[in-house]
């Protein structure tokens, strides 16, 4: 996992994973625990250690119900659900890789094509 | 050496001996940074700070003056900071009335346990004063440097 992604996850989640004191209350409270390969406390721990690759490929990302029980009960205010969400976004945004790059665009341009359509297309393709 | 053209304000901080000076010490003990622009003068109680001292600081070239004392109710001398609060509120209001930038003056309550607060207050105050630039409205031209 590269450093950029790690920083990106910390930034988008707004969570300081270093506040975790490893009490496991997040996992103790998680209703989806049994469905998950990686549990909430592991998300926090692995993100802190920079070990994100396994998380990105794990189904656990989609088992989180975002019920926020862990956020509510974490005694240190770490907010694990936000970490899971950030990793999920990191995975989602990577998928497909169907972004247009600026140098691909001139060839596609057409004088009759309205400006708005180009912008809309950008939006569509970058998903 | 690199020449730093950034404006470096002179900040005078009056700190009461029992709370804020100890709070400043604690921020040092905890290695919490704040700019070197802040120079602390120890007074027994915030109520020792005479408005004359504040004006004197501005006269001699200070760009900001901050007074720190015990939290209301926690004064080592029971009531000193309550008097401070009234005096300094009125004085700051008067300076504001004369058109002196109100962000050059501040009063904060910092306890002996609030080292982190002391550093945070000083950081934000130095930022405020830097934004205002040099004190020109209440300076003595004869005391201007250079």
């Amino acid at each position, binding site marked *: 996992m590269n450093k950029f992604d790690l920083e990106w996850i910390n930034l988008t989640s707004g969570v300081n994973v270093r506040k975790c*004191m490893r009490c*496991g209350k997040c996992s103790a409270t998680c209703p989806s625990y049994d469905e998950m390969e990686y549990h909430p406390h592991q998300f926090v721990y692995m993100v802190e250690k920079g070990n994100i690759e396994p998380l990105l490929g794990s189904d656990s990302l989609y088992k989180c119900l975002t019920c926020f029980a862990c956020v509510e009960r974490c005694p240190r205010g770490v907010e694990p659900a936000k970490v899971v969400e950030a990793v999920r976004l990191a995975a989602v945004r990577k998928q497909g890789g169907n972004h247009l790059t600026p140098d691909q665009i001139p060839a596609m341009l057409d004088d009759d094509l309205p400006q708005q359509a180009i912008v809309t297309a950008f939006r569509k393709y970058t998903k | 050496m690199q020449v730093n053209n950034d404006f470096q304000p002179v900040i005078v901080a009056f700190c009461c001996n029992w709370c804020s000076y100890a709070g400043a010490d604690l921020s040092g003990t905890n290695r919490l940074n704040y700019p070197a622009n802040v120079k602390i003068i120890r007074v027994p109680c915030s109520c020792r700070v005479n408005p004359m001292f504040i004006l004197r600081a501005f006269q001699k070239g200070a760009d900001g003056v901050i007074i720190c004392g015990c939290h209301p109710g926690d004064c080592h001398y029971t009531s000193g900071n309550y008097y401070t609060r009234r005096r300094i509120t009125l004085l700051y209001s008067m300076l504001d009335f004369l058109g002196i930038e109100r962000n050059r003056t501040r009063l904060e309550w910092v306890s002996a346990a609030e080292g982190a607060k002391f550093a945070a207050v000083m950081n934000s105050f130095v930022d405020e004063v830097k934004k205002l630039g040099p004190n020109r409205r209440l300076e003595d031209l004869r005391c201007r440097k250079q």
Partner: protein
Amino acid sequence: MQRIGVFVCHCGTNIAATVDVKAVAEALSHEPGVVISQDYQYMCSESGQDLVKNAIKEHKLTGVVVCSCSPRMHENTFRKAAASVGLNPYLVEIANIREQCSWIHKDIASATDKAVILGKAAVAKVHLNAPLTAGESPVVKRALVIGGGIAGIQTALDIAEAGFDVDIVEKEPTIGGKMAQIDKTFPTLDCAACILTPKMVEAAQNEHITIHSFSEVSDVKGFVGNFTVTIKKKARYVDETKCTGCGLCTEKCPMKKVPNEFNMGLDNRTAVYIPFAQAVPKVATIDPNYCMMLKNGKCGICSKVCSVGAIDYKQTDRFIEQKYGAIVVATGFNPIKPDKYNEFAYSICPDVVTSLELERLMNAAGPNGGTLLRPSDKTHPHTIVFVQCVGSRCDDEKGKPYCSKICCMYTAKHAMLIREKYPDTEVYVFYIDVRTPGKNFDEFYRRAVEQYGVHYIKGMVGKVMPRSDGKIDVQASDLLSNEQLHINADMVVLATAIEPDKTARPLATMLTTQMDTNDFFTEAHPKLRPVESATAGIILSGACQGPKDIPETVAQASAAAAKAIGLLVKNSITCNPCVAHSDELMCNGCSSCEKVCPYGAITYQDKEFRMPDRTTAVRRVASVNPAVCQGCGACTVACPSGAMDLNGFSNSQIMAEVDAICK
């Protein structure tokens, strides 16, 4: 002409790493009046002090500036050094270039600049320092102990042992505090009552100790050696001098449905009550919130049955005033109420209890006579889950950010006692960390695991769900096996955080002592003066200063007593000579200063003055009593004519500092 010596300390690398001390010494050597400017590795060391002393003698110094750590650390050291070679100690000034310079700045250039400026300010100030002589004020040979728990009792016993009178003020009807509620003590498992109650009796019988139970401190005036304290003796509607503690009234009282606070509300008491059998003083108290006689004038049974006529429904709060030389604060702690944590179901399930409640449930004098039964159906619990760190180490508003220190050990004790007495009971302890620093502490915890088979599980309980069949589903995580557990429990015990007593905050205000953000009293120095507050004459004992177990509390209580005795044996104490004084020639006698003086140190007298035209005029002028003045300086600013000034922090000294900093 002033002859000033400047001494710049390296403090090892504490200062020298970020401040160029040689440059500071060099820069300050050019200041007016400075005749010698030196730097040294450790100025506070013996040889460092000798350096200062020799310089004073050799250069006939009239003022000394030490650029070193905070004056709160070593001002006294250098003042004493100066005095030992004949220089008035108040001619020494400290420039704080460690706590307020080298430790907060990283850039050597700017830190050095700042250190020079701080040094210049100190030199400018010392130019205007005047030699001061400290006066003396007498010490009242009596101590006050606020709080009658084990800390207060121990402190009072030790002070009394030294032969001084000591008063205990306790807000409850009996002394004893939290320890009286505890069943057994760790790590020895001896009975708390067996070791506490003899001390309570000893305190009651000691001729030097006066116990004011059911009383509160309502006002504190004065200063070290001479405090005047007003004690409110709350109306207990029973004449303490007559009541024999026979307990007949408590048997006959018809109002029997009052929650018993001594048993944590787990059973009931009567409206007239004695908290527990070994209460000291053993005197009944009527609870006005429940007594029918006091509420609507109907009943009066207790008065009829009392053979000594001790019941007095007309009693009112009384106030007594007493002078003390020293005050010891021993206000103790309380467990927090865990009702804000919905996940632990404390407020909806009677079988979820706090640890202190468990103490009462297991106590022979408790609601079940010592048999551990579930509060809900009085059945024997077969599975008990302990939850650690409830409200401790919490970053949110529901709990406390600190470790409550005692929970790990008392939980091990509870688990062990339960397994000992009821071997058929399974005990689970969910922990984040097990903290057992202390003599025989870790051995004790290991015994709970190894000999008693207590299941310690690394992880936290996430949810406690009472079920309709009376069982409790405890959902928790086991971090080491990485699984989520569901335990079918009969009882859940919460190790709740402890917090300072609610009376501590207003008391701190009265005593003008400092508290930290958690309302624990702040000690004068975290390492070197851990039992004194920063306010002279106010001494701290027990858990009011921070979480403590019983041996630590007793140790600190005795230390507090030593500090109090050290004060009381003196006939007089040296006053702070940095007091206010008024220039009679300028004083208008307007009384502004008198109004702001918190100590009543300022009085007025009519004095005759020779006028320039050779007539005499009588004017009203202020004078300050230096033994009473504490040197706050409020008067100096209230004075419009500038007649009032403060020794050691005079107008001209502070302005000289301002000038030096702004130059």
